[in-house]
């Protein structure tokens, strides 16, 4: 029976993506019910498997266990296959006949260098949908530029808009923001192409430049430039007409709460939440324009109130009066946010070598849906037999020959077990 929460069930995706942006997109396809087959070479596996060596990655088979890899590849299957070899390519050709989508986020030239051009892919499956996610796109003078999320963010214009405002320094996001943004868009591109295939019977090639997707999130800044030749000022955590509008220190170590007041009604609510202090009745705080003009002093007074309480106590008082506010949740705290818990946002993920931890579930939830996480990220080559034997009908002897030739493998080549290696510092 059709499950509306998994609208892409029945779709099979050959996932050649690596690291972040592509895997995030393929994860969304997998969450939506597509059968996503993650294809990695025994000699060129997804680097994210081994970016965090033991002891950060637990277990003997540490290339299968770290949280970073699982964050992007839960609900997927793993096929190890060397696409640079003729034998590997022959297997891939047979697999493509069963695939609807190929998705990759290699450097611009890699697919062609591997002999996996769109033309070749189409020869194997005429209505194939191919999504290429090179950072800067497949054409144009900068097509050979390379970059991970923060470079994409810088080159998209995003970083130029962020900063404290008092030092002129632009600030990047705390995450590699360019990656998930490109990934979400790639998932949308796949669904859009499937809709069009249903209408026309034809596949297509999609050239999705990560930098361009991120740049569409800056509409008002593009408009201000186009209209007034003006570039954005760094606003810090302030606002150009709201006050109070800031993060305020709370009792505790590096604890903060964000509070915003948009209307006179919310100002009255804030006053009630703070216990109706005398100072709030002063004439210079009596309307929105005056509050904004006196925002520095007002921020100090609000901060004096927040500093005396924990961020959860301050939030409880503000919540009761419906003032827009939120604690600045740390990572360990957001996992326990009562609201997210009530909605079941984080779901358990289980792996035999790790045990149980939680990861985010549905990014959006369909009414009546089951849990999002069906299984952890796959062990390297975990589904080789299922896909080669079951789906493609390749006899066991032939599979064994492929393994002997190093075309498939159950372990990345040259990677020692955890117990065989010295501890090394982790990248993060």
């Amino acid at each position: 029976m059709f499950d509306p929460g998994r609208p892409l069930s029945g779709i099979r995706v050959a996932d050649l993506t690596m690291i972040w942006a592509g895997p995030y997109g393929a994860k969304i396809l997998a969450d939506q019910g597509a059968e996503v087959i993650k294809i990695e070479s025994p000699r060129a596996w997804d680097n994210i498997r081994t970016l965090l060596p033991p002891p950060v990655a637990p277990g003997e088979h540490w290339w299968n266990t770290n949280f970073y890899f699982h964050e992007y590849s839960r609900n997927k299957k793993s096929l190890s296959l060397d696409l640079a070899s003729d034998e590997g390519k022959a297997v891939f050709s047979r697999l493509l006949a069963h695939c609807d989508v190929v998705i990759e986020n290699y450097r611009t030239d890699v697919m062609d260098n591997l002999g996996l051009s769109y033309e070749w892919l189409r020869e194997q499956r005429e209505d194939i949908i191919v999504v290429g996610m090179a950072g800067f796109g497949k054409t144009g003078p900068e097509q050979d530029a390379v970059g991970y999320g923060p470079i994409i963010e810088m080159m998209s214009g995003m970083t130029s808009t962020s900063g404290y405002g008092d030092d002129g320094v632009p600030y990047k996001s705390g995450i590699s923001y360019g990656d998930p943004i490109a990934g979400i868009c790639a998932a949308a591109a796949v669904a859009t192409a499937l809709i069009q295939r249903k209408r026309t019977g034809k596949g297509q090639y999609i050239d999705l430049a990560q930098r361009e997707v991120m740049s569409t999130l800056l509409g008002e800044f593009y408009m201000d430039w186009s209209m007034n030749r003006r570039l954005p000022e760094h606003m810090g955590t302030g606002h150009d007409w709201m006050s109070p509008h800031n993060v305020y220190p709370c009792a505790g170590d590096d604890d903060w709460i964000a509070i915003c007041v948009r209307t006179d009604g919310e100002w009255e609510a804030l006053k009630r939440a703070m216990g109706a202090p005398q100072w709030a009745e002063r004439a210079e705080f009596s309307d929105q324009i005056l509050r904004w003009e006196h925002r520095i002093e007002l921020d100090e007074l609000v901060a004096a109130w927040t500093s005396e309480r924990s961020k959860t106590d301050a939030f409880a008082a503000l919540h009761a009066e419906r003032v827009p506010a939120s604690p600045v949740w740390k990572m360990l705290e957001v996992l326990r946010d009562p609201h997210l818990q009530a909605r079941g946002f984080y779901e358990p993920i289980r792996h035999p070598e790790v045990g149980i931890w939680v990861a985010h579930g549905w990014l959006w939830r369909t009414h009546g849906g089951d849990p999002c996480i069906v299984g952890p990220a796959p062990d390297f080559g975990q589904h080789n037999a299922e896909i080669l034997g079951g789906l493609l009908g390749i006899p066991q002897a032939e599979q064994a020959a492929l393994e002997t030739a190093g075309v498939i493998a159950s372990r990345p080549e040259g990677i020692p077990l955890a117990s065989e290696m010295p501890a090394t510092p982790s990248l993060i």
Partner: protein
Amino acid sequence: MSEQQQGQDEQQPMDRPFDGIRVLELAEGISGPYASRWLAALGADVVKVERTTGDPSRAFGPWPNDLPSDETSGLFLYLNGDKRSVTLNLETSDGREILRELAQSAEIVIESFDPGYLASHHLGYSELSAGNDALVMISITPFGQTGPNANLPATELTLYAASGQMWLTGHPERHPLKNGGSQPSYQAGLNAFAAITGAYYGAVMHGQGSYIDLSVQETYAGMAEAFHTRASQLGIEAQRSGNNLNALWGVYEVADGYGGICALPRNYPAFAQAVGLEELQDERFSDPGQRLLNNDELMAIMYSWFAGQTRQGLLELGIEHRVPFGFVATVEDLTNSEHLQSRDFFATLDHADAGSLTYPGRLWLSSVHDWKMGRAPRLGEHNMEVIHGELGYEREDLVRLRELDAI
């Protein structure tokens, strides 16, 4: 097929994936309009239902020459291109009835009212999808439809804080920082676009629609990258890392602005060659483990090296050596970028009131379809066309509806 017929076919407009699909937009602000902006560009007929005073984003700048007007808000124009505007007052029974009629011909409904508002007006999914089983409807709200914060008002700043993103952003010795602009709303809009396209594909294939509850907080918390799963798997809290996670991952000042590098261990050899400093070949930097132990020293080298570079020079050096170098570009740089222009990223559109403006004009390039770009509608511009022309109300009805404050 004759040659002449073939010639005619070639002149046909390209088939777009959402041609002939009707989207009913009951969403205001950024998230919902951003999602349907792209559905419109992909061919959908987006009927934007506005309150009689208009989408509040009409009252947000920028405006040409800083002259505020309901018809020329840059934010509104960007987010609402190619849509048709109909005004409806849903507090009137006539307004609600017209909405129900519009929903009968819609494949997709996007709404952003407070949780429970539509249901309390008998306009929830069960009512709007009655007789229209394949209807896909999405609700986009700050915290979703359920849970203790569902009805808590929110702003970009509070959502940035609630999602955990804010904790990660900014200098470790200063307060947490917010990204520029309205990132919580925009990223939620992009997620909504993905949710709608996926759900609509399911509806096309199976004839069964769905109702989707999208929370801005959740979509944003879902991109906390390694940091929340590290917390959950290993119990380790993350710290703000400012502009530099480590010496080879961050932003540096250059001669004419700011540049950056993001190198993973495997990029190091190419990086060292591109920079060309002999000391980078030392084992204390070239060995991945030792490099992290000698991070401060490497960072000092990087500060002084970057100071002698230019933005464009860095990009070119990165292209030559395949090293992830880049620079902090502004929207001015991007609007003038030869690269982006060569890829037709921008669309320049005339608007009677706002003049000729250059917009980001698409998300990706497809081998089989283009992106339609048209101007945003004036408030209620299509009342006559839709309510009279398509729903069959008489002209006198429109007069009555206006007088009853229904449109």
